[in-house]
C-alpha cells in the first residue's frame, strides 16, 4: 500500500509540473499587459518599458518559464504579487483555509444529506418518497447557486435576521455560504446514490440475504450500501475538488476572501504570480483528494485492497 501511495505521489509531481507549464503558457499568451495595468493609460511608452524590465516581462518565454519552474519546484516559491506586493505563498496560507472550510463543509453536508436522500429514494423506488427525493434533487441541480444564495440571504438575514449576510467571523458566517454551495452537490449525490443503490439492490446476493431472513435495515446498510459506495465516493471526491476551485461565486456573494476570489481578481489584474500560484496549489489539492479517494476505495472494497496487495507481491 505504501509503495502505491509513494508511486501516486511521484505521479502527482508530473501532474503538477504539467499544470504549471500549461498555466504559465496560457497566462503568457493571454492579452493584457501587467505593466500597463499597474501604471494605467497615462504612462508613457518609456515608463511602461522600464516597468516591464523591472518585472522581468521583457525576457524570452522559455527563460521566464524556466525561472518560474525553478522557483516553484526547487524553492516552492510562487513569487510576489504584482498588485499586493506580498508573497503569493503568504497570501495563499491566509486564504486557502477559508476556501478549504467552505469546500469541506460543502462535502460533508452533501454526504450527510445527499446519501440518505438517495438511499430513501432507492429503497422506496417509484413510491412517493422516491418522487419527493428526486424532485428535491432536480430542484437542487436546477437552481443557480448565486440566485439561491441571494434568496437565502433575503430570507435568513434580511427578513428573519438569524444569520449574517456576508463577511467573516464565527461559525454563523459560514452557514449560508456552505448551505448555498452544497445544494447542487446534494442533488447530484442523491441521484448518484439512488442509481448505485438500485443496481446493488437488484443483485442476487441481496435477494439471497432477504431470503435468508436478514432484516431489511441490515440488508440496506450492511450488504447493499458498502457495495454501492464506490461511485458515491467518486462523486464526493470530484465534488470536493470542484468545490475547492469553484467557490468563487459563493465567495463573491458572501464577501469571503478565499482563494477563488483572490484568483479571479488576479486574472482581471493580470497578476501572473497569483494566478499561477493559485492554480498550482489547487492542482496539488485536487491530486491529493483523488489519492485519498483511491485509498478510501481500498478501505471500503476488500477486492481493491487485495488487488494492491497482489500487485506488490508480483513485484
Amino acid at each position, binding site marked *: 500500500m505504501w509503495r502505491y501511495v509513494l508511486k501516486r505521489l511521484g505521479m502527482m509531481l508530473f501532474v503538477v509540473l504539467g499544470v504549471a507549464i500549461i498555466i504559465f503558457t496560457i497566462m503568457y499568451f493571454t*492579452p*493584457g*499587459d*501587467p505593466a*500597463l*495595468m*499597474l*501604471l*494605467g*493609460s*497615462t*504612462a*508613457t*511608452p*518609456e*515608463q511602461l518599458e*522600464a*516597468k516591464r524590465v*523591472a518585472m522581468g516581462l521583457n525576457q524570452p518565454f522559455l527563460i521566464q518559464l524556466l525561472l518560474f519552474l525553478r522557483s516553484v519546484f526547487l524553492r516552492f516559491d510562487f513569487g510576489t504579487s504584482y*498588485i*499586493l*506586493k*506580498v508573497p503569493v505563498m503568504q*497570501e495563499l496560507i*491566509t*486564504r486557502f483555509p477559508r476556501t478549504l472550510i467552505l469546500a469541506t463543509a460543502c462535502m460533508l453536508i452533501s454526504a450527510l444529506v445527499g446519501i440518505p436522500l438517495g438511499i430513501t429514494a432507492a429503497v422506496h423506488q417509484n413510491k412517493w418518497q422516491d418522487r419527493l427525493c428526486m424532485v428535491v434533487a432536480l430542484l437542487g441541480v436546477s437552481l443557480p447557486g448565486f440566485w439561491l444564495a*441571494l434568496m437565502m*440571504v*433575503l430570507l435568513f*438575514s*434580511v427578513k428573519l*435576521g438569524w444569520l*449574517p*449576510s*456576508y*463577511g*467573516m467571523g464565527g461559525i454563523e458566517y459560514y452557514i449560508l455560504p456552505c448551505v448555498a454551495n452544497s445544494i447542487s452537490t446534494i442533488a447530484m449525490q442523491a441521484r448518484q446514490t439512488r442509481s448505485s443503490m438500485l443496481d446493488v439492490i437488484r443483485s442476487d446476493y441481496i435477494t439471497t440475504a432477504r431470503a435468508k431472513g436478514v432484516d431489511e435495515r441490515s440488508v440496506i446498510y450492511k450488504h447493499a450500501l458498502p457495495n454501492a459506495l464506490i461511485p458515491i465516493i467518486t462523486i464526493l471526491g470530484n465534488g470536493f475538488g470542484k468545490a475547492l476551485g469553484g467557490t468563487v461565486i459563493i465567495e*463573491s*456573494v*458572501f*464577501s*469571503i*476572501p478565499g482563494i477563488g*476570489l*483572490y484568483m479571479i*481578481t488576479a486574472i*482581471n*489584474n*493580470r497578476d501572473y504570480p497569483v494566478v499561477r500560484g493559485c492554480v498550482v496549489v489547487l492542482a496539488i489539492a485536487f491530486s491529493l483528494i483523488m489519492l485519498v479517494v483511491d485509498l478510501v476505495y481500498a478501505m471500503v472494497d476488500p477486492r481493491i485492497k487485495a488487488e494492491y496487495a497482489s500487485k506488490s507481491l508480483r513485484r
Partner: protein
Amino acid sequence: MKRPIALFLIALLLACQVMAPATAEMADSTVVIGISNDPERLGPFNSRSNGAKQILPIIYETLGARDEFSGTFYGVLMDTYQAVDEKTFDIKLYENIVDHAGNPLTASDVVFSINKTKEIGELAEINKIASVEAMDTYTVRYTWEQIPALGDFESVMSGFYIVTEKAYTDSADEMATDPVSTSPYRVTEFVSGSSVVLEAVDGYWQSADKRKVPTQKAGIAKIVYQVITESSQLTMALQTGNIDVTANLSADDVEQFGDAGPYGAQYDVYSMPRIQSYDLCPNCSADSPLANVDLRKAVFYAIDASTIALSISNGQANVAYTFGSNCYSDYNPEWEKNYYTYDLTKAQEHMQASGITGNVELTIEIKSSDPVQATIAELLQAFLGQINVNLTIKPLSQAEFLSDEPISTAWDLRILTFSADDYITNCWAKYFDTDITRTGKTKNFIQDEQLQALIDGCTTPENHTAENIDAFQAYLVEQAYCFGMVQLYDNVVYNAALVKGIDLNQNNYLVPGAFEY
C-alpha cells in the same frame, strides 16, 4: 431600603452621563462603510485600486489638499510654500508632525517618499518632478521637469503620500498591510478582500485649534471599511443595518433609501454629479473609416444623448456637452447651445458629404465590467443603425481595454470615462495633449498642430482664459474629435441616526473622520 439606594445610584449615574461634557471632537462609536472594491493593498507609493482610492486618503496624509467644493488649496503637512523660480518651489513643513510610531516627520522623509514613489514607478504623475532636496530640517525644494502647467503644483502636492523613512523601512511589506502614517487614524486590522479597521490615534499632531484643513480630524473613534463586492449584498447590508454608509450603491437601489422609499425614515441620501463623464472617442487614424470628419459628424448627430441619459443609472444622468463633465470651474454652460444634438437629417447630410455609400462597419470597444457602458453601446447600435452604420460591440476586460488603446486597427470607437482633479482643460490635456501622450499623436491618433496649439494655449496658468478654453471647445466640436455623451450621479446613502452630515475629499471620496455625528 436597598431599593431606594439602588434607584438613587441609577439616578446618579444617569445624571453624571447627562452632565458629562460631550467630547466636542470625537463620537465614541463606530461607523461601518460599505465599499464595493477591494483595496487590495495599503502601501503609500504604489498604484491604487478603486478600493484603495477610497481608503488611502484616510490612512495617509499629503503635503496639501484641495477643498472639495471651492477648490481652494490648503497645506496639510505643508505650512507654507514659495516659488524660487518658474520650475523650483520651496516647501516648509510644520515642525510638530509625528507619525503613529512617534517618528518626527522632516524634510528628509519627504525626499525619501517622493524618491521611493519614483523608484517604484507605478504613479506616472510623479515624473513631473525632476528632483527633491532637503534644504534644512523642515524645508524641501521641489524642482519640476518643465514649468508646471495649470494645476500641476496642487495635483502633485495633493497626489502623493508622505511617510517617515524609519516607519517605511521598519515595515516588513512596504506598508502593504500595516501602514504607519501621520494621519488621525491608524489601521488596526486589515483582512485583504474583507475589511479594514481604522482607529483614531491619541495625540494626533494637528490639534483642533491649529487645524487648517477641516477634513483632517478624527470625528469618530472607529471606522470600519467592509468590502462587499456583490451589489445586491451591499443593498441588503444597508437594509439590515450591517453598514451605516455607502457611496457604491447601485442607482436602481438608491430609491429604497430616499424619502419616499421603505427605508427612507432611517437613511438619508446625498446625490452629487459625478466628476467623470461617459465620452465617445472616434479613431481618427487612417486605419478607421472615422478618419473622415463628415462620418464622425454623422455618427455624433445620430446619437440621442438625452435618451441615453434616461436609459442608464435609473435615469440619474445628465447630457454632457464636451469631453468631460460640468463639475469643473472652467466649464462654460454656453457650450450647451452649440453641440451635437440628435438630428437625423443633419446626420444623413453628413453621411452624404462623407462620400461613403452603402453600409459602414464600425467596432466599438467597451469595458465588460461596466454595465452602463454595455447599455450605452446597445443604444448606440440602434441609433447608428438609422444611418446605415453597423456597430459591432467588443466588450473587453480592463487589461484588454488598456492594451488595445494604442492599436489603431483594433477599434473605431471607444467609450471612455474620463476626469481630471481640477480643471476641464486638464481633462482634455490627458487625452489630446501630445506632450503628455508622448507618441506624437493624441490617444485617438490625431496629429493636428492646431489642436496642439489650442491645448497648449489653455493649460498654463497665464493662458487659462475663457476665450482660449472656448476656442479649444469650438475646435473640438468643429473637427468632431470626440463626443461627450452623459454624466452620472453619485449617491451617498447614510444612516441618519448615526451620521448627521457627510464630508468628501477633492476626489469625491468619503472622509468619515470629518462627518458630523
